[in-house]
């Protein structure tokens, strides 16, 4: 069992959980993810690791309530336990000294972006962070980002904080202003698609981290398959990070909807 040692709500639907998992805390690197199962009836869900503390033996997970299991996980309190946490899974981020790196994201994607920001910064890159959200309250981890980067640009759809506009506006400003050597983007699929289209125009190498539907997370089921450069890849063992310019985002968005109907039904049952 994996005990929750601290919990913070980032917003109504997004919880930040610090969970005891000493072996994973020791072996994880930026970019890795875990599979979590709440209890006997729970679904196995993939969650990217936002942080780890080797001394405390904990990892930090940011969970957005989407389906039945994630909604139930977010209702847990400090001291409660998760039945299963397994990982670290996937390939770690390829951290190098690239020069200037934009790390951009939105939604819960900002959480797994944090360890990449830290690692890129430690590797000697100039790191510019672009965070985007609908409104001010949904911007998360801003302080942590500021502490580990050279500049943070905030974009909100409604202009309630930072600049008004979508993520690509912020990213394009930087690209037009200075030479950018690498872009890392993690967020909703549609956001990653448009960042990818933008950086393709400017020919800036771009990495995205995909969070598809998974069951086992170890390469066994193939639920997570995506088309990358005309080849079918498994996000769990071939990814989760891929060259953004090769990813078929439209197919991925379609596949992410596979269980929409079942999800809605399960949530309705849960609230009964």
């Amino acid at each position, binding site marked *: 069992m994996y005990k929750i040692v601290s919990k913070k709500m980032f917003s109504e639907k997004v919880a930040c959980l610090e969970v005891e998992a000493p*072996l*994973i805390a020791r*072996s994880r690197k930026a970019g890795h993810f875990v599979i979590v*199962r*709440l209890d006997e*009836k*729970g*679904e*196995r869900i993939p969650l990217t690791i936002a942080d780890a503390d080797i001394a405390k033996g904990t990892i930090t997970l940011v969970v957005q309530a989407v*389906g*039945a*299991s994630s909604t*139930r996980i977010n209702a847990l309190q400090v001291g409660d336990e998760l*039945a*299963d*946490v*397994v*990982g*670290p*899974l996937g390939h770690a981020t390829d951290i190098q000294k690239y020069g200037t790196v934009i790390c951009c994201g939105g939604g819960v994607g900002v959480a797994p972006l944090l360890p990449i920001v830290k690692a890129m910064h430690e590797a000697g890159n100039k790191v510019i962070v672009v965070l985007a959200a609908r409104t001010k309250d949904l911007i998360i981890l801003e302080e942590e980002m500021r502490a580990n980067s050279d500049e943070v640009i905030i974009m909100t759809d409604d202009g309630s904080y930072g600049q008004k506009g979508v993520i690509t506006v912020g990213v394009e400003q930087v690209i037009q202003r200075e030479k950018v050597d690498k872009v890392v983007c993690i967020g909703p699929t549609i956001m990653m698609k448009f960042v990818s289209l933008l950086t393709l125009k400017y020919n800036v190498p771009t990495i995205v981290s995909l969070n598809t539907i998974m*069951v*086992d997370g*170890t*390469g*066994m*089921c*193939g*639920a997570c*398959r*995506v*088309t990358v450069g005309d080849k*079918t890849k*498994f996000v769990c*063992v071939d990814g989760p990070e891929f060259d953004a310019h090769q990813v078929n985002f439209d*197919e991925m968005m*379609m*596949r992410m*909807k*596979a*269980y929409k109907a*079942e*999800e809605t039904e*399960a949530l309705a049952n849960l609230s009964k």
Partner: protein
Amino acid sequence: MTKEEIQALRNEPWREELRKKMSPKERAAIERVKMPELTPEYRVTTFTEEVQQGLTKEMAMCEAQRCLDCADPSCMKGCPVGINIPTFVKHIEKGEFAEVISTIKKTSSLPAVCGRVCPQEKQCEGQCIKLKMNQKPVAIGYLERFAADYERESGKMQVPACAPKNGKKVCVVGSGPSGLAFSADMIKLGYEVTVFEALHEIGGVLKYGIPEFRLPNNVVEAEIDTLRKMGVNFQADVIVGKTVSYEQLHEMGFDGIFVGSGAGLPRFMNIPGENAIGVMSSNEYLTRINLMGAGRGQGFDTPVLKGKNVVVCGGGNTAMDSARTAKRMGAETVTLVYRRGLDELPARAEEVHHAMEEGIDFHVLHNPIEYHSDENGRVCEAVLQVMELGEPDASGRRSPVPVEGKTETIPADLVIVAIGVSPNPIIPSNFKGLEISKKGTIVVGDETMQSAVKDVFAGGDIVRGGATVILAMGDGRRAAANMHEYLSRPVTRC
């Protein structure tokens, strides 16, 4: 077991007496027992009730009389784990059920499993002397299952004796059949044994793959529980190569590592439309239902797509399991598409027979070449290429050849691809120094099961690339014997 040991057991007075009790002619006159089964109409309504109901004590004792107790028992040569078949069968004939199970458990740690899923027709029963006499073979598989079930249902499971601890520690990667067989032998030899399993349940393919109507989970669990009582330590949620490295296993004090990490990546056909919603691997389909409880109506969170017109691609046991599961999930039609003919189906004859009884439509000599999907991206049709049989290929079977220009399109809102798996890549890509074949399997010595890294042994699908439960168990046993020999060498190990 040596020839002499087999002979010595056969020469025991009770066996001689039993042989004389009936003449071979009388034994030959007994009809092979028929396994009681649920009717096809009823069984497609239940996930957990077993199709085959098991023999009664009377049936088993009568069937055991058919065995001639040969001087040179050829059946044993067909058993990958070397069970002393005539000895246990004769104990059944005599009604000595405690002796029956202790005989089997000397060499097999999973009799209730093997009695259900082994392809006996190709192994023990396939070698039975009665076949040469134009009679049906002794129903060894049914008897093995009976023996294990009888013991379990009695509530008094024997725990095989173990040697005193020898102070050495070994670990196992994966808790499927090869790992369980390896663990049983090593714990008996006095090793401390820890099994690391990546999933949350112990049992590997026995749990996530084989459906309960063929192998109930409580049957698997009871056999694993016996291993627990023998002292095997099981740890779920640990992925060796990810959670802990090879080096960390050494820091933890393990002297030897057995890799039985099994099959991993499901194969797809790389045809247009294959990434549509509703096209999935048999691994995904079966795991959702068997391991995660999806679609069972018991409040599990994991969903599974249901289909009215389900197409299953492939002709092996997994294809049969998928098709029969889809039927139980309420599909109106289930069509099994296989590129060769009925005679070439690699699945066990019994599974094919059961699938046909349950109304699975066998669409042989067809091969999917494309899937069409609706406006939501959900698959709606499968385009099939009509095939014919040509010259025999490398496998010895006649190879399927497309009939130029002849295709057929059938409705399909769920497609389950069961055309095989590639070995799990996690150990091959995380243990340095292993020799890996082109197919991605770990290369080991044929008899020793030892890999290029001397303290790493391997067996099962990670070595074979896709085989049966019993062959995996045989590998586990051979690996145990050889690792024991390796770890017992007095001086520097090389």
